[in-house]
Each structure stands twice: as structure tokens, then as C-alpha cells.
């Protein structure tokens, strides 16, 4: 009875076109945002920030980028780690070369560089599809890994190509580097994530988003109604890579703070991010974050769950349990609910709408 849209009449198309046409959704969203802005900075400890919130936000942004490319535009990519690396190394290179440059600008530039590479990788997508495209993006991933390993200039000639987060201020507050307080990093990340997510939502509900989905659902029909396939696919590659690049830069600069090229390997980035959108929901913005939260939280949960039951399981066994669970869940979602957690959330809402009268 609480979740009803009865009586909420729309008298204009503008009102019907909003992101949350149902008032309860709107209230819930803003309540969540206020909570997110206030509670963690006041009460959060470093464990909460470091282990949960930071990776969820960074990887969630990467998942959103991949979701634009794969979930909305239907172009499969295994090169996520490569684009994250491009974003991170670009950020590092630019900010160490121009320490005075506002870091928001640096993030933007890092995203743009990643977008340019995305377009280059996307060019073959006009001709090759599905599995073969995935292999192309995989090649891109290996190429990037090779570059950051071999081209010392990219890491300012540091041993083993390691890059770290330099101390940087924004509006006079230290927000980056080892001495920056977690709450400051958190609020900055939250701001970036919020703005970028809003932009993504606007894109997918407008002309560009519709042309992505049209290409995904039936590329021939899309072409026959005047959508240019190449331009549409490349725009998805560009914008998806832009998000992944910024996500990757944040991942390194705020979360890991010190990385070598190993951190961008396919098994620690590309595949987990792909699993995030598969579990969270292909073609759903909310799903990108749900998936990220799920994949970040599950190991945390397992690690705390067995000790809680007083069962003494060595940590390497837990890791195996983790792998098995991941595998099982992915198969489960592929078979039972290909639209992922986001769809489950939707079903809950549909049920709530009818509650307490299911018919």
C-alpha cells in the first residue's frame, strides 16, 4: 500500500519523462543520496571506506562504462582492464607533468584519452561481431599491458613500472595521496560518480541511448531506419571507454594508491567487471552498481561469515569457495535471470505495487 502510483497523474510529457516518474522512487533516491553524503563521512571507519565503499564506487563506474558498451550497445568487450590502465596511467602522467592542473580536469583528460583508444579499438566492430570482437578487445588488453610494462616513460621510469597517487588538493583540501583523509576522498569520488552516472542516465534515455539499443537489438533494422552503424558503435566505444578510463584512474588514485601493471591483468579487472554487469544486469545503470557491490561484498562476507560461526577455515580455502560461488552464481544468473539483480529489484517493486492484493 505504501508503494502506489495511483493518483499520480502526469499532466505533461516532461513529468512523464523524468528519471523516476513514481514519487516514492524519487524520495527513496534522494534519501539514499543524503544518507550517502552524510553518514559515511561522519561515522565511517577506514575499513568501510577502504574495503567496501572505494572499490564499489570505482569498479561500479567501470562496470557502468562496460554496461554502456555491452549492455546498451551490444558490443562485447574483454578489454576493460586495458582501458582502466590507460585511464590510470594517463592520469598519472598528466598530473605529474602538470602538478598545478586541477585534478578534475586531469580526470576528464584521462577519460578522453581512454575514449580515443576506445574508438580505435572499436573500428573493427563494424565488420566483426560477438565472439570475434571480444577477441579483438582482448588483443587490445594485452597490447596495453605490454605497453605499460615496456614503455618506462609511462610510469616516469619507476622500477617495475609502478605508479602511485601523488598528493593533490582540490579547493584547498587534500584529497589525494597517502595523507589525504578518507572522507575527503570519499566525497570527491561520490561527486564524480554521481555526476557521471546522471550523465549516463541522460544519454541512455535520449537519442543516443536509443540508437545504441537499436543496434544491439537488431542492427539491420536500425540501419534501415537511418541509424548509422559505425557512428553509433564508435560512440558507444568512446563513451564506454571514457567511463572505464575515469573509473580506472579513480581505482588507482583513490583506492589502490600504488599499483604495478599486474593490477590490470585480465583476471583481476576485465573478467570481474564483466561479471558485475552480468550479475547486476545488462543494460541497467543501477545494475552496474548493484553488481559491483555484490562482487566486492561477497568475499568480505565470506571472510567474516565462517569465523563468525566459529568454523576455522584457512583463508586459501575461502578463496576457493569464493571462486566456486562466483562460477555458480554466474551460471545461475545466465539461466534464471539474465537481466540480473536490477531485474530482481524491479520484480520486487512490481510485487510491492500490487501488495497486499496480488491479483
Amino acid at each position, binding site marked *: 500500500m505504501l508503494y502506489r502510483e495511483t493518483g499520480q497523474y502526469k499532466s505533461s*510529457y*516532461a513529468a512523464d*519523462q523524468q528519471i523516476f516518474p513514481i514519487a516514492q522512487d524519487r524520495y527513496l533516491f534522494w534519501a539514499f543520496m543524503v544518507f550517502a553524503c552524510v553518514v559515511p563521512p561522519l561515522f565511517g571507519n577506514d575499513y568501510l571506506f577502504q574495503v567496501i565503499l572505494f572499490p564499489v564506487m570505482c569498479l561500479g563506474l567501470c562496470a557502468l562504462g562496460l554496461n554502456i558498451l555491452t549492455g546498451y550497445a551490444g558490443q562485447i568487450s574483454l578489454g576493460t582492464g586495458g582501458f582502466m590502465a590507460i585511464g590510470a596511467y594517463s592520469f598519472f602522467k598528466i598530473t605529474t607533468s602538470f602538478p598545478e592542473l586541477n585534478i578534475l580536469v586531469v580526470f576528464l583528460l584521462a577519460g578522453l584519452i581512454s575514449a580515443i583508444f576506445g574508438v580505435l579499438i572499436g573500428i573493427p566492430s563494424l565488420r566483426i561481431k560477438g565472439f570475434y570482437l571480444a577477441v579483438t578487445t582482448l588483443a587490445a588488453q594485452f597490447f596495453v599491458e605490454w605497453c605499460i610494462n615496456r614503455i618506462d616513460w609511462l610510469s616516469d621510469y619507476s622500477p617495475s613500472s609502478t605508479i602511485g597517487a601523488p598528493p593533490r588538493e582540490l579547493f584547498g583540501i587534500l584529497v589525494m595521496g597517502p595523507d589525504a583523509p578518507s572522507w575527503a576522498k570519499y566525497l570527491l569520488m561520490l561527486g564524480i560518480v554521481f555526476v557521471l552516472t546522471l*550523465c*549516463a542516465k*541522460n*544519454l541512455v*534515455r*535520449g*537519442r*543516443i541511448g*536509443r*540508437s545504441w*539499443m*537499436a543496434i*544491439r*537489438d*537488431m542492427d*539491420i*533494422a*536500425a*540501419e*534501415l*531506419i*537511418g*541509424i*548509422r*552503424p559505425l557512428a553509433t558503435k564508435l*560512440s558507444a566505444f568512446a*563513451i564506454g571507454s571514457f567511463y572505464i578510463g575515469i573509473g580506472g584512474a579513480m581505482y588507482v588514485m583513490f583506492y589502490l594508491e600504488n599499483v604495478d601493471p599486474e593490477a590490470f591483468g585480465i583476471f583481476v579487472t576485465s573478467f570481474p567487471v564483466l561479471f558485475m554487469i552480468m550479475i547486476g544486469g545488462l*543494460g541497467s545503470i543501477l545494475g552496474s552498481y548493484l553488481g559491483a557491490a555484490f562482487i566486492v561484498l561477497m568475499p568480505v562476507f565470506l571472510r567474516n561469515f565462517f569465523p563468525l560461526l566459529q568454523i576455522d577455515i584457512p583463508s586459501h580455502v575461502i578463496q576457493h569457495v569464493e571462486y566456486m560461488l562466483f562460477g555458480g552464481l554466474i551460471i545461475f544468473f545466465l539461466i534464471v535471470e539474465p537481466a540480473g539483480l536490477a531485474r530482481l529489484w524491479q520484480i520486487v517493486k512490481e510485487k510491492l505495487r500490487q501488495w497486499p492484493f496480488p491479483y
Partner: protein
Amino acid sequence: MLEVKNISLSFGAVQALHDISFGVDQGEILAIIGPNGAGKSSMLNVINGFYTPDSGTILFKGVSRAKMEPAEVARAGVARTFQNIALFRGMTTLDNIMTGRNTKMSKNFLWQALHFGPARNEELEHRRKAEEIIDFLEIQAIRKTIVSRLPYGLQKRVELGRALAAEPELLLLDEPMAGMNTEEKEDMCRFILDVNDHFGTTIALIEHDMGVVMDISDRVVVLDYGQKIADGSPSEVRADKHVIDAYLGVSGN
């Protein structure tokens, strides 16, 4: 408005179209009929640039072309529906129809990302147009339904809506009534006639139901084995000996 001149098309050994010529006049409803495999769908595919003919030219609004990308043809004012429904299955009815208007929208992605000012006005403006089509086709109740959940007849209607959304000058319909029951067919006939009346859209349609063809078309072109065997008013075609042999006789009409 459309002139098809000496079009031939073959797929390997199969000669799908053989030296076909006909014209479509401004504002008329032209029916293309013929037995299965006669080359009707291929003809539409040639007209909207999906197939490139081996020889022959196509004149649309006085501009001649031998080869043109389908997207460009669509932008020039030709829209179509497909024999096997080709909707964007994962999108809602409204989004499908809005996608039909995509080529009419121009605000770049930065504006769209902000969804503010010009981009927002553009979106609302086109929403209004899309709603006119939704009203016209009487599909208000399903505007937010994902199309893959709709029954076949409604999907056909949505597909017509998507084609109409582009405000085409020439509308190509490939078997718009296939697989429909009588009531749905009547609705569809009404929509086609109304489109022709209200918007002055020129229509070329493929249809197997002879009753429908005789009722709604101004002119009929008959194809058989890739050849044009007749071209004229419904009553002329109906009386034509070749046609009776090739088609009507077979279908037992």
C-alpha cells in the same frame, strides 16, 4: 515519385528480379503481389538500398541512384516495415517509436548528457510527435511495455508506428497483415488508408490477401518468378489472363 527502371538482381544462380520497371505516383497506394518467392521482398530491399541491384536505376523524387546506403535512403524519406517483425525487442513501444524519429534529432551528445535546455526541448518535442502516432494507432495502453511481451498483431502495429514516426514520404510495407485475424486486418487496413489520407503518404505494400489488395490499393503490380507480369488497376489485374494463370488460379481465389 518513385521510378524503378530495369532492375535486375540475382543471388548466385537465383535470378530474384528480372528487368523490372514500374513507377509509384505521389499519394497512391500501390500493391505488389505475387506467389511465394516471386521477388517481392527483394524488390523492397532494392528500393530502400539494402540490396544493390546488378543493373538498373532507381529514381526517387527525381534523384537517380544506383547504390545508396540504407541509412541514407531512410534519411531521404523512405520508411518500411518487415515481413518478419524487426522491432527492437528489448525496448518499450514508446522507445521503438521514438527511435523512428532519431534521424530527425540533432542535438549532440554533450547536450544530451546534460538533458537540459535544447536537448530536453528536442526530446519533449519529439515525444509529442510520438504520442500523436500512439494516439493514431490506438496503442496508448502499451506505450511503456517492452515490445517482446506484446502479441503479434500489436507488434505489427508498433512496427507501423515506428515507420510512421519518421514522417516518410514513401512507406514500404512488407506483408503488414500476414498472420492476423480478420478484425486485426480490418484495423490495419483502416490505419493504412488513414495514413494515406491524413498524411498524404505514398504507400507501396506487399500483401497476399487478395480481398485486401482489391479493396485498398489504387494500383497493383504483379510479380512472378522475378518477372513483372501485370501492372494496372485492381480490376484490370484481376481480369488479366497471365495473373489468373500465375497466381489467382493457384490460390483458388
